[in-house]
């Protein structure tokens, strides 16, 4: 796994990797199959991309899609699996969701319907497709350390390290890397961002933080598990007229890549996921399962490290979001 | 016949500044329908509220079946068998007849409500006591007004314990054909020995249904009539009015010119029908009529607050299509509404803003109010109208009733209106302000405006107007010039008494305008 990760470089390589996979899987088909696709919500870019990727791929492979949306309510999302069960679909792709879905997965499994998950490891699922969170955590750690010259003070938004496993991995490994930099200090207490209305909340918290740490006493602000709060962090830095602080975060959606691409942006490093490819890969995995292939419990989809404005522009284009000047 | 069922003697009740009841008495016997009449403010409703336990009397005694009632509270009065049929129906629109009859006095068995038993009781009551088939499962909102009135009566009497029933204007909301149904029910109750007090402004009905009548004036019973016939109306009115016109009203300087506003065949299909009227330039036209006569609705329709079903309104030969007040204002027709606080005055705004409300366009440029011009104009009008305080920044809410009314009038003076529709222009206004408002109206007419005054005060109509239209049950019953017209005659016409007695017999032939 690590070997693959290291071999993958930025940009073009990623897309060719996808094309290559698709060609190699030319024999796969979901003809005559009804596939349930459940997503926790479609309001967020990531969720929507994964959902769309899964649906498009199922349809491309000749399958019929039964789609359900939880409207960002984990319980509704869980209930939707019952609908798919009553509908007697042939397989279920379930995107995100909290532990409320576990009993539903079990019921599906008991009814002989295989479950494939996205970003939600479960003992009842055949396979979970996810980004390589280990690589994301270590890469952003190295990039950030480099950006501040290996020494300085860092504030971190870290509300979810204990609550969500993927955040535990990402932030944990970021800290693991920093433990080799004795000159870097993580400011205590750590900040906790809100999930709803994250940019505005982070903006306010950052303004407070900056008044507490005047020029020269803080070097970086990192968002541990995603990048929506980083939008507010960058805003706050601009409002306060501070150019001495760099910002790093994870996920690399189009909105944050745009911010990174601006000239003189304090947002210097990110690791972009490929949510559409993740959804699509999960759908491919369903087809592989029906073709009799044995799947590993986890499929890791490549991520795209983004270091600086130029790489942000390149990633933006290569991930299919358009072109940035 | 035994002694009186109810006897109220020498009841005195004062409110701050007012002696509402000044030694009033009334006595009612078994099986008697006893009329209680008097002008507005004579003390009828106060005495009823004393009986109901709403107000405590300062002195006087109340006895029921010869026993003094001491602690008069609503609950005690109810337990003693005294029931009130309020003018308002107080019914829940989506309740069934049975549910409404038993509201607050439901019959419950061991397992929840005894719906069947209640329905049977209600059906029996309507059949046997009121002698009517009504359909106890129907919803109140599907009933006619008369049927609702009967439901209200049934609610008061269903427990079979009523000794005395007080009716407050029971026919006010009813159409002519419906009254007989309610009267029939009342007569059935009389036959069963129930004593009744019947409060009403409709003298024709009083003389039709009542056995005896007590007349109130200025908080006292001034006359009791033991034998009632159609001829009694004249005497009753004399006892009610008992006064002459004072020097409240201005000298007339206006003179009627060419027609300004003409209404032909106006109906709203519900509250008034086939109304014709012509208003001339420089004329003050009065509209009289009791509450429920359609007077208020007619006035609202003239102003565009209500929709007419048929008929035309023409303004100086220009057909008017009124669907909202703004249309009327644009054509120079303005209304000074009866409820100043609700419709006329923006209470939270100051005097200047209120005065300029209707003429904002003139004092604004490109949508911006020109404060200087607005203030100047407000100050001029405050001076002209003698509004007090003279401060244009005083908040509307803090003004007295008379001054509020002047502000509302002032607003319309600020635009050059041709037709003024004044609905109860002096309601709740003290005498001093009344005189000023009357003078203002006179001045407007002298300048050539046409003015419609709708009022429940017969003295005001006679003192102010050139001509009066009398409405009754949705129609204009009389049209009469005010020269030589007495209050008695006008009251007789508005109460319907004139249609029975000779008091208004020549009214129709009196000259118009």
């Amino acid at each position: 796994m690590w070997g693959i990760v290291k071999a993958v470089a930025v940009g073009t390589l990623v897309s060719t990797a996808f094309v290559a996979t698709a060609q190699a899987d030319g024999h796969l088909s979901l003809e005559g199959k009804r596939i349930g696709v459940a997503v926790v919500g479609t309001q967020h870019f990531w969720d929507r991309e994964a959902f769309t990727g899964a649906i498009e791929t199922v349809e491309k492979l000749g399958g019929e899609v039964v789609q359900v949306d939880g409207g960002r309510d984990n319980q509704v999302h869980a209930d939707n699996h019952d609908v798919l069960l009553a509908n007697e679909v042939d397989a279920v792709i379930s995107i995100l969701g909290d532990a409320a879905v576990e009993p539903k997965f079990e019921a599906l499994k008991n009814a002989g319907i295989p479950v494939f998950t996205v970003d939600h490891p479960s003992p009842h699922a055949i396979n979970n497709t996810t980004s390589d969170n280990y690589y994301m955590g270590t890469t952003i750690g190295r990039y950030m350390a480099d950006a501040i010259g290996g020494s300085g003070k860092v504030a971190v938004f870290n509300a979810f390290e204990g609550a969500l496993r993927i955040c535990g991995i990402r932030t944990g490994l970021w800290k693991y890397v920093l433990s080799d930099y004795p000159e870097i200090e993580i400011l205590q207490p750590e900040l906790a961002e809100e999930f709803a209305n994250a940019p505005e909340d982070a903006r306010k918290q950052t303004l407070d933080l900056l008044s507490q740490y005047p020029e020269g006493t803080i070097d970086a602000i990192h968002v541990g598990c995603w990048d929506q709060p980083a939008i507010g962090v960058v805003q706050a830095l601009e409002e306060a007229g501070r150019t001495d602080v760099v910002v790093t975060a994870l996920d690399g959606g189009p909105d944050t890549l745009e911010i990174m691409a601006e000239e003189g942006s304090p947002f210097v490093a990110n690791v972009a996921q490929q949510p559409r490819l993740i959804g699509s890969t999960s759908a491919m995995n369903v087809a592989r399962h029906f073709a009799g292939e044995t799947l590993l419990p986890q499929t890791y989809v490549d991520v795209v490290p983004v270091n600086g404005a130029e790489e942000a522009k390149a990633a933006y284009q290569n991930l299919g979001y358009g072109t940035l000047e | 016949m035994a002694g009186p069922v109810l006897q109220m003697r020498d009841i005195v009740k004062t409110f701050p500044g007012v002696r509402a009841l000044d030694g009033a008495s009334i006595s009612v016997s078994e099986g008697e329908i006893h009329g209680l009449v008097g002008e507005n403010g004579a003390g009828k409703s106060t005495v009823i509220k004393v009986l109901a336990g709403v107000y405590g009397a300062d002195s006087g005694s109340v006895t029921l079946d010869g026993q003094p009632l001491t602690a008069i509270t609503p609950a005690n009065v109810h337990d003693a068998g005294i029931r009130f049929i309020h003018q308002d129906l107080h019914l829940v629109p989506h309740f069934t007849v049975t549910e409404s009859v038993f509201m607050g006095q439901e019959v419950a068995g061991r397992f929840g409500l005894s719906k069947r038993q209640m329905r049977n009781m209600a059906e029996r009551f309507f059949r046997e006591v009121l002698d009517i088939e009504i359909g106890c499962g129907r919803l109140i909102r599907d009933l006619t007004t008369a049927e609702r009135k009967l439901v209200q009566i049934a609610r008061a009497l269903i427990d079979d314990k009523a000794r005395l029933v007080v009716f407050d204007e029971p026919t006010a909301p009813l159409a002519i054909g419906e009254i007989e149904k309610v009267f029939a029910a009342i007569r059935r109750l009389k036959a069963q020995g129930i004593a009744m007090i019947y409060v009403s402004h409709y003298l024709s009905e009083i003389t039709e249904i009542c056995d005896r009548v007590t007349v109130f004036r200025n908080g006292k019973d001034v006359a009791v009539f033991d034998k009632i016939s159609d001829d009694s109306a004249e005497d009753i009115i004399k006892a009610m009015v008992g006064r002459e016109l004072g020097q409240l009203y201005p000298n007339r300087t206006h003179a009627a010119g060419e027609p300004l506003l003409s209404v032909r065949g106006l109906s709203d299909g519900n509250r008034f029908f086939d109304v014709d009227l012509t208003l001339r330039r420089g004329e003050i036209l009065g509209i009289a009529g009791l509450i429920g006569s359609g007077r208020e609705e007619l006035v609202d329709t003239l102003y565009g607050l209500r929709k007419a079903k048929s008929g035309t309104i023409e303004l100086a030969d220009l057909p008017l299509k009124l669907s909202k007040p703004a249309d009327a204002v644009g054509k120079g027709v303005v209304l000074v509404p009866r409820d100043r606080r609700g419709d006329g005055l923006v209470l939270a705004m100051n005097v200047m803003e209120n005065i300029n409300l209707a003429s904002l366009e003139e004092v604004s440029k490109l949508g911006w109010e020109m404060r200087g011009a607005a203030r100047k104009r407000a100050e001029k009008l405050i001076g002209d109208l003698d509004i007090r305080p003279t401060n244009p920044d005083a908040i509307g809410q803090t003004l007295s009733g008379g001054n509020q009314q002047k502000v509302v009038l002032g607003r319309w003076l600020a635009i050059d209106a041709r037709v003024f529709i004044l609905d109860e222009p002096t309601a709740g206004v003290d005498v001093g302000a009344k005189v000023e408002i009357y003078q203002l109206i006179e001045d407007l007419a002298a300048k050539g405006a046409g003015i419609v005054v709708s009022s429940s005060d017969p003295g005001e109509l006679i003192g102010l107007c050139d001509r009066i239209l009398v409405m009754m049950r949705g129609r204009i019953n009389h049209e009469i010039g005010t020269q030589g017209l007495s209050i008695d005659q006008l009251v007789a016409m508005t109460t319907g008494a004139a249609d029975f007695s000779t008091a208004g017999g020549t009214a129709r032939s009196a000259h118009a305008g």
Partner: protein
Amino acid sequence: MPDSVATRPGGFDLRRAVGMAPVAIFVAMLIYIGFNAPNFLTWSTIQLVLSQSVPVVVVCLGLSVVVMAGGDDVVSGGIDLSVPATAILCAGIIAQQVTLAEQPLFLAAMLAFGAALIVGALNGFLVTRIGMTPLLTSLAMFVAVVGVNNVITASRRIDIDAPLILFLRDDRIVGLPAGVAIALVLCVVFVFAIHHTKWGLNLQAVGGSREAAEVSGLRPSHFLFWSFVIAAFAGFLASFFVLARGSGSSPGTEDNLLLEMVLATFLGASFSPRRVVTVWGAVLGAVLVAALSIGFKSMGVNVFWTGLIKGSLILIVVALGAASQRMR
């Protein structure tokens, strides 16, 4: 003589037709779905509809009582938007106490019950004593209660595996899912209490016409106050079904519950012959909305369109209800 009384048109009764339209639309819609979605008109899907509507049904019981006591004017009448928040708070308290503090379920439930009572009494106090409008009061309460829950659960999901909760989730009583059977009993109790007792009828009278109730010797504020307490109690009851449904308490569940509750309750009025909010109407509304949602999902309707279709349909039904009321 003018006939000022509205006469009933003979033959075709437009008002009646418009009045029946909401029911007709829903029935037609469900039949359409039945033909187009596999397995929709089967006993297992019907059970699914019932199961999934249970939390909404139970909060609807509470809301309908408040609407009946306060009158069905959405702005100035009775409404309690805080019921879903109360349900979520109680679920949060129970999950936190049972799973994290390792208290017995009974104790945790008592704690939640106390919290619900406080919310209900506070609502009632603010509306009847301070004179705030129910809409504003309960909306503010909704926000506050969700805030309290966020503090208690630290905005995290908390699993729960108490036997009672698992029983509600997985077991069956006389052929019905246990949650459905128990909710059915609750509905019967509420319908009886509100529609078949003196107290319930008086409560409806208060909402129907405050003056009429006062004239009949009823105290409107008394009924309004208790309606809020009952609504909060319904929230407390709903929390068990919320926990069973999600196998624990998840943050963010209150919004959807709120939306569906308000929709179902006022939709229910369209189904009632008197065009007023009733307990059973609200329950029926909740079940039908759930049926529609599940129907669309089963048909594989594009998720980006479901909200629009569902919303328009409900708008049409409610508008027809209002139209038939205006036609009187």
